[in-house]
């Protein structure tokens, strides 16, 4: 079945939810790509999303992988355009209006209001992902240790994620 129209709809919709960051859209990403369209399983989504965190550039490039699975090269390209075009256009237009909105008193209200909601949505996305990624004592320890180290030092996170891979290999590779 041709998945291209569905890919466009889903990723254009998801892009509008990424207020504050890509993670804000994660709960809807799970529902639409896993439960509704069955492009991949929840564990696969979590794996791709995690690997995508290490990739350079915008941290949602794993959507390209989903597009490729569902629709080949066309799917990958279509997903990219659907995901980035709507918000790019919006940012382009608002970016030009922004300085003119300086005198508009609601501008500061919107910024402050959305700042708190976006943190909440990012956390919610994070908890949704943790539900699939943190499955026992070892994974919980990995998450806590990475979290603590990152808040206390300036180490490159990619190294810690690689460390997680190594511990995963040692802990789960035997069975």
């Amino acid at each position, binding site marked *: 079945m041709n998945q291209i129209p569905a890919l466009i709809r889903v990723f254009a919709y998801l892009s509008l*939810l990424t*207020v504050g960051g890509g993670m804000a859209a994660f*709960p*809807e990403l799970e529902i639409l790509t896993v439960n509704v369209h069955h492009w991949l399983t929840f564990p*696969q989504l979590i794996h791709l*999303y*995690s*690997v995508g965190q*290490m*990739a*350079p*550039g*915008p941290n949602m490039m*794993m*959507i*390209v*992988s989903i597009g490729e699975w569902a629709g080949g090269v066309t799917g*990958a390209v279509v997903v990219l355009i659907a995901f*980035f075009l709507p*918000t*790019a256009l*919006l*940012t382009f237009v608002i*970016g030009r209006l922004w*300085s003119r909105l300086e005198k508009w*008193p*609601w501008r500061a209200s*919107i*910024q*402050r*209001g*959305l*700042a*708190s*909601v976006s*943190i*909440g*949505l990012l*956390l*919610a*996305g994070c908890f949704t*992902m943790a539900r*699939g990624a*943190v499955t026992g004592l070892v*994974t*919980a320890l*990995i*998450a*806590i240790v*990475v*979290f603590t180290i*990152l808040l206390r030092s300036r180490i490159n*996170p*990619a190294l810690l994620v690689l*460390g997680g*891979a*190594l511990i*995963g*290999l040692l802990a789960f*590779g035997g069975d």
Partner: protein
Amino acid sequence: MNNTPNDTSRSDVTLGEIFRAFLLIGATSFGGGVVAYLRSSLVTKHGWLDDEKFVELLSISQTLPGLNATNMAVLVGDRLRGGPGAIAAVCGVCLPGALLMYAVGIVYHVHGDRPLVTAMLHGVAAAAVGLILATTVQLGRRSLQHIYDLIFVALAVIGVNRLHLSVPYVLLGVGALAIFWYRPRGGEKEGLGR
């Protein structure tokens, strides 16, 4: 500098230079901290923006939907060379990661269910949770100013994770509530709490 605040358009910067600068950011910013890479390239290396402008554009990027990296690319590209500059910047910053994840997707599709790969990815996913949580907490420390903000954070989390409301309803509902809470008061700046 003779740049006026509203006209930072720089006709001396070519589209090729914009594309190459963002391509380099898109290819080297491993580990998620893309904002730091943007700053060191755009402010320090190229001098296309000063620090104040960078922070202002970043705050627009964070308020609007869209990822910080691409929103920044749009805003900076537009300021340097208008619409074509924005397109050059977005393409540059997206291209390396997109190609990489295209390849990763194919490899993972073929080898993803091997036990050793699954074991590694199990660890990677757990580490990524810690990474994303840390990034969110750091962002929160910077952008949340008041104890009331935490109420809206909690409402959004409860709405999505406990009540299983879909994200757009929570965004619009809690968003409207929070914006109303910080509504303009008495003509002066935003209300300083109550």
